[in-house]
């Protein structure tokens, strides 16, 4: 360290403006951004994609893309003006005082260099080499709770799981004992249980190391658990800032208010009303913003908001950039909350699955991706599938759709008639009846066709329509997914992620399906867009009486939309029952662990159950109960020897566990603090 006396603030941004040069013109990405992070403080930066969060991070470490430039302001890192540093001083600053961890650890690690080498080179920079560097690297891996560091050192990044890769990336970031740690969406894309572990790790390490943290995330709940203070970024401007708890419980900017309303919270369900949404879009990078950047989407906005930039009002320890900060929470809803009609009386199941198995051959071993799954789905209902990655959710969906054939023996019945195992042996009507919406609408839509062509083709193929009838149905369909005629002429790349997902949904609904499989349909979307898509799915369901199989890692989203939940682990159903029963408990220990891994916005930190290690390989599942290796409530040898049956604990609610239902209820009563 060159500066012996620590500066008062770890990071100070003063009036920072950054622009990207697009088509020969500078476009502002950050506008006069000022913020400070004190020594040892954890500061969260939230906002939707495109609002400039990552640009802040990249600016601090001076790693802007080629077309980016700092157009004004100052950055002071530990009292050092980062913008005045020459190349060598900048390199030293990066080596000694600031580190960064970002999304997608698989890409952040060099694929052709062993993990150990990638770590030791950091110590070599500090003049430690050879054996000593190796020892330091092993110690560092130990520190990020990697249990077998010596063997991990010898591996290449692709041989590690996502959670392990992110641990290695964190170890690399902390190896130089930085005074400033920048975390840019560090857990996005990881499983909820892994995310919880990584967040725990970061929280513990930040205390041990006393590093200041800039935590960037679109996930408000994660930020609320990790950070002391939070800043809300909108269109490159700070619109609200303050202590995390205060901002999230008592927001004073309409954007923050709206953002929080988009989230299904406190166990909210589709029959309790729609989620609120934020109308319109983030102003594009080319927009010339005169007044408040949020005015176009804000129901409180008046003429002054549109013509005059509101200052950052100091509201006593917190800031809000809104003329109407005193009545921000009176923001009218953008989407009426009118409750969807009550569930219809139970009809005969539209889908009945019995004894479904799928075994893959993997290097001579049998990999049981789905084992003995039986369940029913009634018309107009949603079945939520939850479980970590590798639990068999997607394989199950593919079996239903006939994309892969199941093992012999199991049956899939659609409206009472057996379905052929393979898609090509199913009738057109059966194919029409079951459709899918994928996670990534980008890759699901053919980019060279117009939206009209994409939906029209689905109508032709699935509904057998042509001519006038097709036109009429096309217009209906487009209106029901809330697209306008304007969108029909364009190509997919001209639409935002949310609009593209609407197109994908319209296509799935073209043939009046009975069942739509939704595989993580909102995972790639911002919360405001997610809310709109969830509302749309709920509306379509009550209108068309369609059933959903809804796969998501976001439990609050699953809970919002689902009537029934199936919890999968290593291809087996561990718990199956009505959504409310599964969530409110008593539940299977695995479900319990999944639920406790979810970061909650209201910071009611329940005693968290941590799942150690990783989901075991399906080629070699543990004996007895497959969950016993990680189960926090394991009762004894019986768990290792006998696989418990999936037995009905309550009418309609089945649990696969040796522990009796009443006992589970007693054990979990202390922990369950779920708001109803």
């Amino acid at each position: 360290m060159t500066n012996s006396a620590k500066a008062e603030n770890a990071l100070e941004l003063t009036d920072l403006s950054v622009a990207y040069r697009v088509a020969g013109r500078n476009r502002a990405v950050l506008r006069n951004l000022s913020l400070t992070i004190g020594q040892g403080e954890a500061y969260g930066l939230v906002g939707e994609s495109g609002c400039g969060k990552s640009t802040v991070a990249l600016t601090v470490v001076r790693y802007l893309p080629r077309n980016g430039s700092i157009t004004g302001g100052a950055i002071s890192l530990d009292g050092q003006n980062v913008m005045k540093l020459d190349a060598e001083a900048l390199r030293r600053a990066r080596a000694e005082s600031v580190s960064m961890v970002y999304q997608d650890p698989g890409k952040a690690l060099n694929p052709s260099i062993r993990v150990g080498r990638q770590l030791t080179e950091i110590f070599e920079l500090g003049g430690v080499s050879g054996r000593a560097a190796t020892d330091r690297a092993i110690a560092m891996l130990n520190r990020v709770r990697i249990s077998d560091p010596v063997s991990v050192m010898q591996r290449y990044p692709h041989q590690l799981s996502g959670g392990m890769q992110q641990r290695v990336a964190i170890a690399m970031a902390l190896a130089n004992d930085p005074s400033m740690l920048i975390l840019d969406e560090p857990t996005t894309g990881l499983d909820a249980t892994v995310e919880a572990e990584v967040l725990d790790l970061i929280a513990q390490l930040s205390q041990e190391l006393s590093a200041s943290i800039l935590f960037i995330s679109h996930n408000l709940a994660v930020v609320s658990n990790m950070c002391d203070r939070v800043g809300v970024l909108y269109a490159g401007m700070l619109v609200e800032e303050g202590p995390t708890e205060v901002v999230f419980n008592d927001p004073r900017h309409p954007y923050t208010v709206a953002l929080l309303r988009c989230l299904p919270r406190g166990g909210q369900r589709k029959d309790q009303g729609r989620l609120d949404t934020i109308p319109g879009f983030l102003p594009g990078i080319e927009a010339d913003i005169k007044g408040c950047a949020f005015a176009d989407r804000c129901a409180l906005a008046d003429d002054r908001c549109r013509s005059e930039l509101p200052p950052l009002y100091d509201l006593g320890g917190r800031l809000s950039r809104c003329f109407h900060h005193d009545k921000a929470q009176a923001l009218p809803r953008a989407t009426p909350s009118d409750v969807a009609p009550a569930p219809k009386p139970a009809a005969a199941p539209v889908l009945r699955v019995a004894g479904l198995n799928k075994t893959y051959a993997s290097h001579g071993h049998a990999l049981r991706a789905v084992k003995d799954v039986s369940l029913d789905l009634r018309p107009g209902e949603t079945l939520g599938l939850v479980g970590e990655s590798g639990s068999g959710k997607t394989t199950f969906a593919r079996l239903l759709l006939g994309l892969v054939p199941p093992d012999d023996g199991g049956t899939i019945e659609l409206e009472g008639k057996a379905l052929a195992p393979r898609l090509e042996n199913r009738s057109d009507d059966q194919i029409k009846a079951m459709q899918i919406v994928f996670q990534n609408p980008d890759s699901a839509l053919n980019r060279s066709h117009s939206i009209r062509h994409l939906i029209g083709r689905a109508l032709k193929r699935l509904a057998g329509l042509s001519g006038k009838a097709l036109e009429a149905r096309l217009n209906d369909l487009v209106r029901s997914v809330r697209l306008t005629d304007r969108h029909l002429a364009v190509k997919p790349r001209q639409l935002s992620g949310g609009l593209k997902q609407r197109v994908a949904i319209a296509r799935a609904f073209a043939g009046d399906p009975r069942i739509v499989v939704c595989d993580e349909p909102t995972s790639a979307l911002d919360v405001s867009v997610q809310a709109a898509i969830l509302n749309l799915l709920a509306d379509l369901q009550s209108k068309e009486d369609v059933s959903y199989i809804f796969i998501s890692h976001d439990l609050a989203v699953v809970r919002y939309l689902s009537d029934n939940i199936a919890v999968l682990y290593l291809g087996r159903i561990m718990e199956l029952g009505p959504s409310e029963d599964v969530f409110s408990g008593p539940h299977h220990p695995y479900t319990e662990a999944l639920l406790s891994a979810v970061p909650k916005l209201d910071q009611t930190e329940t005693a968290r159950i941590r799942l150690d290690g990783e989901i075991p390989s399906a080629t070699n599942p543990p004996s007895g109960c497959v969950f016993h290796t990680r189960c926090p409530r394991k009762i004894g040898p019986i768990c290792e020897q006998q696989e418990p049956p999936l037995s009905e604990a309550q009418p309609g609610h089945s649990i696969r566990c040796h522990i009796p239902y009443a006992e589970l209820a007693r054990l979990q009563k202390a922990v369950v603090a779920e708001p109803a």
Partner: protein
Amino acid sequence: MVFLGGQALPGNVGRAILGPFADQRAVDTLNHTLGVDRPLLAQYWSWISNFVQGDMGTSYIFRAPVAPFVIDALGNSMKLAAVAFVLVVPIGILGGVVAALNLNRPLDRIISLGGLSVTVLPEFVTGIILILIFGVWLRWLPISAAWPRDAGFFTQLYYLILPSLPLFLVLFGYIARMARSGMIEALDSDYTRTAVLKGLPWRTVIWRHVLRNALLPTITVIATQTGYLIGGLVVIETLFRYQGIGSLIFTAARGKDFPMLESGILTIGIVYAVATLVADFLYSVLNPRIRLGSDQ
């Protein structure tokens, strides 16, 4: 394929060898001794089974076994290819890397544009221009690649420089472009960002983190070009009167010397296959994701 193509060509083998004024009976007898009057399938079978045993048949024109001709010619072609290869690979890669490191600056423009423009010129054009400049005007280099008998290594090398230059020009732009785009991708990658933000010196970042990942795709391209370097040189070898496999095939095709033609082309096919195999092998050695894919 080659076999069928050769058979489908118009003209009668015996007639081609004996000339237009020969007696029809003599032509028939010759056709019979050569076996070309047998059914196609039978001819193919005896040809391919002999080939795999190392017997390439007998040349119609030289009335001698084909194998020594092909092996000689292949050896010569490989020498020429080796010289071109040694010249173009390091310089091409260097050019690409330098261009990528100076992205969108004048140096990059010069390398990219220059490489591209010489690549699109066919080798007979550049070949003639080079002969005119270095052979006729400056008189630095011999205009023919046929070196005197008993020439030593360096003399041979001296004679091979001029013919290898057009090949260099054809391949340089290609290799440089691949290396450049590989570099750009690697420089923009997250792992390079990680390396830079670790505070590693720029030199270490490039040598340790960028180059290896950047050049993987280039290696495959280079190896497939080896096939071209050895087998595709008809024009160059003819232009420089060089006894390589390209000119051998060319001569054989003109004389309807099918055993020679077919053996030559099959040999080139084998060279291509081996080159591709070596490339894949090299790629898997350098890429841990493939190398260790099986023990996951």
